[in-house]
C-alpha cells in the first residue's frame, strides 16, 4: 500500500506551499524576478512572489507561494519516538514506581558545556514544570537534582556517581556550529572511558534534538520540542522496569 501525500492548500493534492526568505540582492524588479526564479528552481509551479521589501541596501525579503508535485509515501514512514502513545501522568508514574521498583528514582539533569540556557532542563525538572505539566521535582517517587547551566560533562558524571543516579538528563539549547553535537558526544565518550555508560540511562533534550539523533550519538533517548516531564518519566520508568526485569 502506498499513500501519496502532498501539502494541502484548499484542494487535495494541490501541493500549495508558503515560503519566506532573504536574498543578498537589492530590492527591485530584478530582485523580485530572481526570487520567483529561485522558487521555480525549487520545483514549484505557479511560483508567485506576493510580497517583497528592502532589508538594507544589498538585501531584500520575499514572501512566496508555489505549488509542488513532489510527494511522499506516507505509508512507508516510520518514526522512532522514545515513548509510545501511552504516557503516565505524574500520579500514575509515582504509583508505578512504588509498585514495580519499590524505591525512588534518582535523576540528575544539567545544561552542559558553555550552554547557559536552562529553559529546557527547567521545563522538565523544576517543581513548576512548563505549560501546566509539573516537573520531576514534584514527583514524590523521583529524587531530582537539577544542576543548572554551564556544567562541565566531568562534573555532571561525578555528581551522578555521587548520588547514585539512575538517569542523566542533558539539555542542549545552543546549537550554533553544531556545538551541541560535540558536547553530547563528549559526555558519552567520558562515560565510556570511565566504564560507566551502562550504569546510567542517559537522555538528551533540546529544541533541535530528536530521538533518532540521540540514538545515533549513543544516548538511550532524545527528546525534542513539545516534551514534558511525563514523556521523560514514562521512558525512564519503562526502561528501569526492563533493566530490573520486574
Amino acid at each position, binding site marked *: 500500500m502506498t499513500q501519496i501525500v502532498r501539502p494541502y492548500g484548499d484542494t487535495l493534492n494541490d501541493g500549495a506551499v508558503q515560503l519566506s526568505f532573504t536574498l543578498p540582492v537589492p530590492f527591485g524588479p530584478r530582485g523580485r524576478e530572481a526570487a520567483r526564479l529561485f522558487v521555480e528552481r525549487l520545483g514549484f509551479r505557479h511560483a508567485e512572489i506576493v510580497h517583497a521589501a528592502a532589508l538594507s541596501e544589498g538585501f531584500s525579503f520575499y514572501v512566496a507561494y508555489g505549488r509542488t508535485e513532489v510527494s511522499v509515501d506516507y505509508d512507508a514512514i516510520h518514526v522512532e519516538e522514545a515513548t509510545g502513545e501511552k504516557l503516565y501522568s505524574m500520579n500514575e508514574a509515582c504509583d508505578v514506581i512504588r509498585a514495580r521498583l519499590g524505591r525512588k528514582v534518582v535523576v540528575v539533569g544539567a545544561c552542559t558545556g558553555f550552554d547557559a540556557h536552562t529553559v529546557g532542563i527547567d521545563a522538565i525538572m523544576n517543581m513548576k514544570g512548563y505549560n*501546566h505539566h509539573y516537573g520531576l521535582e514534584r514527583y514524590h517517587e523521583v529524587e531530582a537534582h537539577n544542576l543548572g547551566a554551564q556544567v562541565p560533562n566531568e562534573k555532571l558524571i561525578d555528581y551522578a556517581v555521587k548520588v547514585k543516579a539512575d538517569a542523566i538528563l542533558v539539555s542542549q539549547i545552543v546549537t*550554533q556550529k553544531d556545538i551541541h553535537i560535540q558536547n553530547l558526544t563528549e559526555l558519552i565518550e567520558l562515560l565510556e572511558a570511565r566504564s560507566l555508560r551502562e550504569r546510567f540511562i542517559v537522555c538528551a533534550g533540546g529544541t533541535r534534538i530528536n530521538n533518532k539523533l540521540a540514538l545515533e550519538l549513543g544516548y538511550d533517548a532524545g527528546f525534542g520540542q513539545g516534551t514534558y516531564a511525563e514523556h521523560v518519566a514514562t521512558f525512564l520508568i519503562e526502561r528501569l522496569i526492563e533493566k530490573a526485569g520486574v
Partner: protein
Amino acid sequence: MQMRLFLPPERIARARELATRIVAPVLEFIEAHTTVTVERATLRLAGADGADPDGVPVPNLVVDQLRERLDEGALKFWVNALVRTGEDVAGLNQQIAAGLRIDSLSLADPAAIEEKAAELVATCARRVKGNRALREERLARYAGKNHAPLLYVIVATGNIHEDVKQARAAAEQGADVVAVIRTTAQSLLDYVPYGATTEGFGGTYATQENFRIMRAALDEVVERQGRYIYLTNYASGLCMPEIAAMGALERLDMMLNDSMYGILFRDINMYRTFVDQKFSRMINAWAGVIINTGEDNYLTTSDAVEKAYTVLASQFLNERFAFAAGLEPWQMGLGHAFEMDPSIKNGFLMELAQALMAREIFPEAPLKYMPPTKFMTGDIFKGVVQNALFNFVSQMTGQGIHLLGMLTEAIHTPFMQDRYLALENAKYVMNNMADLGNEVEFKRDGAIVGRAHAVLEETVAFLEKIEKTGLMPAIEEGLFADIKRPRDMGKGLEGLRKKADGYWNPFETHLHRELGL
C-alpha cells in the same frame, strides 16, 4: 504621563528606605576590597593593552605577576615600570607582552609615579569625556529622530564582520539600539580576549577591537540616517569592570550591568560580583553609559505571575546600588519582561499592570523591557501576535528601551528578515496607538490597579524579610529566584583581595571626585 495606578507613595518610599538599608552593609564590604578585574580595568584605563604570543592579555600578565601584592593596587607597579624603563605606554605593553617582569623593578620616587599617573588619568579623562561629548552632540543634533521607546535589536553571528552587516541592516530598518550578544562562554572567562574575532557560539566575543569595529560601522549609519544608533554590550560576568572600561574608551552607549545577576545566574562568587559591579558602574556613570539590569532573568526561571514581586524588589536594589556608584536616574535602564504564560485568562492585564507600575515607581528611568521568550514556540505565526501584544504594552506604558521580540525566538539566532519583521511589527503598533496611553484611565477598584497594589505590597514584605536577614544571607538561603549561593562558593573568589592600608588607585580617586562620591 499621569499617575494612573493610585500607588501609595508612602509604600514606595518604604521600599526605597528598605533597599537603602539592605545595600548599606554590602557597600561597606565593597569599599574595603578590590579584585583582579578591578585592577585590570584600572590598568586598561591607564593604557595597558595587547597580548602575549599565547593570547594572554597584558592586563592579565601584569596582575598575575603581582598576585602577592595586588592589595596595594596594581597600577603603582605598572606606572613604576613606565618611569623606570622610560618607555611610552605602547612600548611598555610590547615589552610586557614579550616577557618583561615589572614586579622585580625597584620602586621609583613616589612623586615621579604620582606625576606619571596623573598624566595617564588626564589622558584617559580627555578620551572618555570626548566620547561623551560626541555622543551628546550627536543626540542633540538628531534630537527627535529615535523611536520612543528605543527599538533594541541583538546581533549574534560569532563573527564581528558578519555582525557589522546585520547591525547595519537593522539600523537602516529603524533599530535605535544594537547589542552584540556575547559568546556563551565569555561571562566565565577571567580575561577579555584581544583583537578582532570571527568565532563564537551564540554570540561574539566582547573585545576592545570588536567594540571599535562595530562603533565605526554604526557611526557611518548615524551620519547617513541622521539618527543616533546606541551600541550595547555586556558588562557582566567575571570581567564586569574591564568591559565597562573598554566601553568607556570606545564609546559604547549602553551596558548590561546588574548588581546580582552574576551571583544568581552564573554562579559567580557574591563578594567578587559586589565589588566588581561597583567599579564597573562607576566607570559607566562617568562615561554617560545607560545600564540595563537583568530582572527579566528572574522570570525565565520562576513564574512571572507568582514571582512578579522579585522583579520589583530587584529593581529597587539595583537602583540603590546604581545611586551608590554615581549613576543618575536617566542612566538606569531597570529591567523587566513580558513573560507570563499566554494561556492565562487576563494575563495581559497583569502584564500591563506590571509595566505601568514600574513606569510610575521609576519615572525617570529608561526602563528596559524584555520580550516574551519562555513561552515562544516554533509557531512563528503565534509568536508574531505575542510580540504585538508586548509592543502594545510597551508603548502604552511608556517604556524606555524596548528589546524587540523575534518570531523565531525559540528556533535560532535571528535571521536578517526576523529583525526586519520585528521592527515592522513594533513600528506599526507603536505608531498606530501612539497616544492611547494618554486617553485611558483605569478603574480605581479594577483588576489592573488591584494587581499593581498587590505586587507592591508583596515587594515591601519581601524587602522587609531581606532587610531582617541581610542581603548576603538572603542570597545564601535562596530568597532570590530559589537559587542558593553560599558566600564562599562560586567562581572568581580567588580573585578577591582586601585592600591594604596603602592601596593606591588614582583612577578610583578620580572617579570618586568626578561622581561626587
